[in-house]
């Protein structure tokens, strides 16, 4: 079992979510986060150009069984990328970490079947 955490652009949320659902991955957690990475954006505030320190992003968390990891990763890669196949700075990152256990609260069942 793995926990996939993807940080993506806010505007790509609809696309990523729709793509994940299409491949059969519909158990996801989404939150709004802010972060600092390579991307640099300029915004206007009352005629002044400003560069925000933190840029709003979307974090998607998905717990999956091992055989679904690659499918989830490829789906996110495809749907979160902007600017064609090249992509652009700020498209985000995907982190994958091993998941020790998973417990369904309603039944108490554990392991891969609880995912």
């Amino acid at each position, binding site marked *: 079992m793995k926990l996939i955490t993807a940080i993506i652009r806010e*505007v790509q949320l609809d696309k990523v979510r729709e793509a994940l659902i299409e491949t059969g991955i519909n158990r996801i957690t*989404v939150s*709004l986060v802010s972060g600092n990475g390579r991307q640099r954006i300029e915004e206007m505030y009352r005629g002044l150009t400003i560069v925000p320190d933190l840029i709003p992003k*979307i974090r998607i968390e998905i717990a999956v069984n091992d055989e679904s990891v690659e499918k989830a990763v490829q789906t996110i890669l495809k749907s979160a990328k902007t600017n064609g196949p090249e992509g652009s700075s700020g498209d985000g990152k995907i982190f994958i970490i091993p998941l020790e256990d998973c417990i369904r609260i309603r039944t108490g069942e554990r392991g891969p079947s609880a995912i």
Partner: protein
Amino acid sequence: MIMKTGMKRIFAILLLSVCGSSALIAAENTPVDTGATAWMLTSTALVLLMVPGLAMFYGGLVRSKNVLGTIMHSFAAMGIISVLWMVAGYSMSFGTNVLGGLFGWNKDYFLLKGIDTNILESGVPEYVFTMFQGKFAIITPALIAGAFAERISFKAYCFFIALWSLFVYNPLCHWVWASDGFLFNLGAKGAIDFAGGTVVHISAGVSGLVAAIYLGSRRGYPYQVIRPNNLVITMLGAGLLWVGWFGFNAGSSISSGLSTAQALTATQIAAASAALTWIVIEGFHQGKATALGFASGILAGLVAVTPAAGVVQPYGALLIGIFASVLCYLAIQVKNRLGYDDSLDAFGIHGVGGMAGALLLTFFIRPSWMAEAAGASPTGSWTIWNQLGVQALAVGVAVAYAAIMTLVLLYGLNKIMKIKSEEADEMAGLDRSYHGERGYGMVNPS
């Protein structure tokens, strides 16, 4: 409106002041009625208050990425239409017939340059009347924005409401409210539209429906659930609209007296009975009374009583409110079946409510009005069925004209610039795409 006799007198003097300089001088010598003027100034401010009220009502109903863009639809109308009204709108609406009565024109009203010292026969300075009517011109196109919320380019919206105001609102306003407008003079005592059932609500609702269908749905509608971002500001907006509506309806008497009191009472009662009816229906249909339902009922009642406020007695207002909520609730259920995306139910509330009010009011007209109509009729008699025919014709004219002209304007404008948002802009949200701003700080996405 058909305005009551006082209103007709005002227009008679307006007409005279256009035609003869002696009448103009007489108008200048009319003393200011400070009581009536004070109430009309208050009403003008109250109607303006409805525009930010509408901005909040609509703003709360969209997703968080579109909240500022939706609020800007109302605020942009305050800028664009105020300027157009001063330049040509007042003249087109309340000038004398030109082009066979298609709209009005009066060179003194152009840029409002010839009314500096005019005082209407009712004792109200003409500037006050101009500004009061201008507020109606502002809120009408802003109402349409609810039909195509969350998916229109800001630039195209600005051009659309400017064109719509010039070519749909001003002619309709002239027909219904100017003393030489053809709907004003229909039948024995004119088509009854006290404060804007046809001019404001039917025209906005029908135009909204046409625009919603022409532009197509929002991305993901109706499969993706699209929920309001903040019903708290929606409720506050509905409250401001209710308060402002006293200026809208009671101010439409252009006086401060008995007819003002009659309109104010009808307005309060219809809003209350419609709001209660809506949550009772919801109670039976959904099992819960929603806040949005109460707000929708308030609006349905206020819209329906708008054409009626000057001629119905309190029991009539009570029943009009009840019928308005039943019909508007049904209209929204039908919309859900048909699947067109009238996002914030501009047609479901304003179109249907406006039509319901304009027709139903016939059955609750106070006897004194009917007696006056019978007196004015060449045959000496005037029945509610005669009046119903007049009302139906006025509604039909408003529906047909608004629908056809909106379609023509959208078609033409779309040749010059793309009206509907690009998919990427729509996904990013109007706030970011067209304004470079965001409405809220660190809140979860909706």
